């Protein structure tokens, strides 16, 4: 996100803190994709993801005064979403994906996306521990570096690196031999 967009969102945050509902709505719109995607990929079903997303933003509603900047807001939302998802997952057994529609929604439907890779990714995510899943999502969905992941999850950085490494190793084993589509991604 560039500086102009960040400045704008900082302005909305200030307005939202003083009670302006339109500004709060803009903040929700700006961050809901990220929160919803994290919730969906952590919990596995649309219903649970929607519930969690709603809870997170309602919690934000009551904690706006503590949020100092849009950057802090992003950090807070990721932290609350992942922590609450991890708590939920710990209270119940392995997540089951129930419908093909929901499976397709879990991963971005890009033209030319490899369906075999998609299936393996789904299996990988559901096989990972809640913490490992959170680390993977924060790294590859939110593009956080390991230090920021460590701060978000309140976890030692070496644990983050170790979880990333092991998750990728598992992925390599499960996707070995597949022809994968290669894209250059900026760091």
């Amino acid at each position, binding site marked *: 996100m560039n500086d102009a967009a960040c400045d704008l969102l900082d302005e909305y945050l200030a307005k939202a803190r003083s*009670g302006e*509902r339109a500004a*709060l*709505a803009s903040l*929700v*719109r700006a961050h*809901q*994709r*990220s929160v*919803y*995607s994290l919730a*969906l*990929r952590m919990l596995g079903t649309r219903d649970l*993801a*929607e519930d969690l*997303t*709603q809870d997170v*933003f*309602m919690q934000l*509603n*009551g904690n*706006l005064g503590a949020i100092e900047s849009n950057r802090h807001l992003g950090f807070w939302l990721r932290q609350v979403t992942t922590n609450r998802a991890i708590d939920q997952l710990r209270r119940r057994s392995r997540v089951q994906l129930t419908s093909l529609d929901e499976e397709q*929604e*879990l*991963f*971005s439907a*890009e033209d030319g*996306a*490899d369906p075999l*890779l*998609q299936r393996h*990714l789904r299996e990988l995510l559901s096989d990972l521990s809640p913490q490992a899943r959170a680390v*993977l*999502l924060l790294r*590859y*969905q939110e*593009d956080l570096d390991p*230090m920021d992941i460590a*701060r978000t999850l309140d976890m030692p*950085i070496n644990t983050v690196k170790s979880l990333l490494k092991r998750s*990728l190793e598992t*992925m*390599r084993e499960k*996707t070995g031999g597949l022809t*994968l*589509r*290669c*894209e*250059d*991604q900026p760091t």
Partner: protein
Amino acid sequence: MNQDIESGLRSALRPVAPSEEFSEQLLARVAAHPPARPKSYGLMPRSARPLAWWLATTLAACLVLAVGVQRHLEQQRLQQSGLEARREVLQALRVTSQKLNLAYEAVKSESTSLADEKPGI
């Protein structure tokens, strides 16, 4: 292959939007529920006020303590991060300087060879 896996992950894990219907419901719900205000102390019955006062004071003290502890932990975490960042800066510059030295040695070695080949220069 490994670069493909991580590129594939980034591609597959791009954020997805919730349904428009959910989005509208969410905005409506957030707009309809402003932050809760604390209840006015004056509306409590007289008999409950001393107990409530004691409870509120204890809670406030616990809160201050908790915030203090949290700040201390946060400070410790920041210090740890800062020291780690310092270590990484020093390491990065050390690595850079080693490689600059390699380049320097190669250039120096080339200059020496040229001087040996052409003694008049």
